[in-house]
């Protein structure tokens, strides 16, 4: 039978060996992380953004690199998914981008701070995370994946900005958010002129419109009008 002193030896030797291995691996990791995380792009702005991220405990609602709380969206790839304009608008006034939804704190950041946070998200988005977050595997069988989420250019003709900003609130072909109305068939309901005015300033078309005035360029608006006009009833993109 095992004696007490043999048990103690097992404990001491096992712990010693594993602790040594762990420290060696840690040294190796420290030497590799700068490359894997692209530390060369870690500018002072990114650093300031991280400080803002920490000092406001954004991780108490969101996850980042899969760590944090489960109350608000995972933000590792948010730069890719939503783009800088959306993120900036969100940080200026969260309620404007997601009216009537689960609440995010309104922080009153100034424009420089917002730029720092955007830089931070851009840097985070470029870390090599060994395949996380995974792309949705069941998505293709149901409908085309959200453009931004897949990273690459969309293949059903939707402009990139649509995949980043508009899907946060609108659904097309069964995919997207439910803050605004479903946009399938909007090409039947609205003509190009209306869409043009709407996208420049919803409030000017309809008093008290629930859609915010979005930071879109003329080129993006033109692209969006072309795309929205193709969304006809009964021939929803497969």
């Amino acid at each position: 039978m095992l004696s007490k002193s043999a048990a103690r030896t097992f404990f001491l030797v096992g712990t010693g060996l594993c602790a040594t291995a762990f420290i060696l691996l840690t040294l190796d990791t420290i030497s590799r992380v700068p490359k894997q995380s692209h530390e060369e792009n870690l500018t002072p702005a990114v650093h300031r953004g991280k400080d803002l991220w920490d000092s406001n405990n954004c991780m108490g609602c969101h996850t980042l690199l899969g760590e944090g709380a489960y109350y608000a969206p995972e933000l590792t790839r948010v730069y890719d998914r939503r783009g800088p304009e959306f993120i900036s608008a969100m940080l200026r006034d969260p309620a404007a981008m997601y009216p009537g939804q689960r609440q995010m704190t309104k922080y009153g950041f100034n424009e420089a701070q917002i730029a720092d946070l955007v830089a931070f998200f851009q840097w985070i988005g470029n870390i090599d995370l060994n395949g996380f977050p995974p792309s949705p595997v069941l998505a293709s069988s149901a409908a085309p994946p959200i453009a931004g989420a897949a990273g690459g250019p969309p293949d059903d003709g939707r402009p990139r900005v649509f995949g980043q900003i508009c899907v946060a609130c609108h659904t097309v072909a069964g995919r997207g958010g439910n803050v605004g109305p479903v946009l399938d068939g909007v090409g039947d309901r609205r003509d190009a002129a209306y869409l043009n005015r709407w996208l420049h300033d919803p409030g000017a078309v309809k008093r008290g419109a629930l859609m915010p005035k979005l930071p879109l360029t003329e080129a993006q608006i033109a692209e969006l009008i072309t795309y929205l006009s193709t969304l006809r009833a009964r021939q929803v993109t497969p």
Partner: protein
Amino acid sequence: MKYNSQRVAWWFFATCMLLFSLQIIYGFIMAFAHVGLDGLHPWIPFNAARATHTNLLVVWLLAGFMGAAYFIIPEESQRELEWPRLAYVQLAALVIVGVTAIIGFHLNWWEGRKFLEIPRPLDFLVVIDVLLFIANIGMTLWKSERKTTTALVLFFGLLMAALLYLPGMIPTANQTMDSYWRWWVVHLWVEGVWELIMGAILSYLLIKLTGVDREIIEKWLYVIVGLTFLSGILGTGHHYYFIGTPRYWLMIGGTFSALEPLAFLGMAWYGISMAKRGGRAHPNRTALSWTVGCSVLSFVGAGFLGFAHTIPQVNLWTHGTLITAMHGHMAFWGAYGMIVLAVISYTLPLLTGRRLYDAPSATFAFWASNIGMISMTLAFAVAGVTQVVLERRVGMEFLQVQTEIQVHFWGLILAASLFTLGITAFIWNFIQHGKPVGELDTSRDAVEPAVASAPVVAAPSGAE
């Protein structure tokens, strides 16, 4: 109770009860926010509620460990605490730091890293406070002739816990490294040194409650903590899969963390088999239920549910979802919540001289809280699996998925209510015991049965 200074343990346990109640209130605030009832948002935003919930948890568990140590160390080393007054000062300091931190959270003052939210200046105070505690029990142990394995394992567990708090303070601008060091605290605590503390308390309780020979119990204690470190140290790698660290962690972390359940399986086997061997001689059956219950549920929560998402191929999908919350609740409860409640159940009659372990409230507390927590775990599990499928596999928008799983948070609230009833009964029982006025127990048999050194003792207690 044999030494006057053991009395301080009662004040630590009373603090536990208070902070635990507050923790539960904040849990409800978050659960209601998840179903859309977030009216408190302007004053207690979700991140403040969450930081309060988890930090109160950690503080009450630490207070429980300290109380347990102040009870166990004098008894094991057979002398009074070295500086009894210091123990009271150190408790007061811990409470003041904790309360300051929690008020700070509500004013947006924190460090903003999960589980390490306490602002930096307060971090240093925590370390100083814990070092005072370590010095106190360390001196008591050092000056004693009798250094038992149980006491030594407990002491080193607590010392290492204090030291491992330090890596969490290494400054870095790189989020990946920040996260790397954070896990040295979080993982190496709960899956490393805290298991030493838990194992030592478990072994102390088993020696007292079952009467099985100390040599046998302490031998297995070494085997269990040996397994803990053999798997748990390199098992840290299961947090290094997807944070920007090298790919080899997938293999190393996956392999070693998959072995971690062995230590918990050991604990479960240990609790059950020692209780069987000892013939359950001790009259305090409630304490024995908590002790054996702890050894079993720690395996379910940490071992089984931890294993369920520790393999890299699975964790890729479940990483950072409600699956983690499911595991976190059951593991913290089964391993650390229950060991503290076990030690309280055992020591309270000795500290106060009242024996209320047969009261209906004691039995009800055990069953209601455990059934409640198991149901809460199920509610988190269903919500978590649904979230993984819809958000990660199908690619639905986050907020849309949250609407789909709202119903499970109503389930969570129901289950949590049962849990809360159980804890209320526990606290009621605690209050009924009154303050620590127990006479010093020089005859050594008023409550405890005489424990001889024979392997099995079935001495019926005079108390019953």
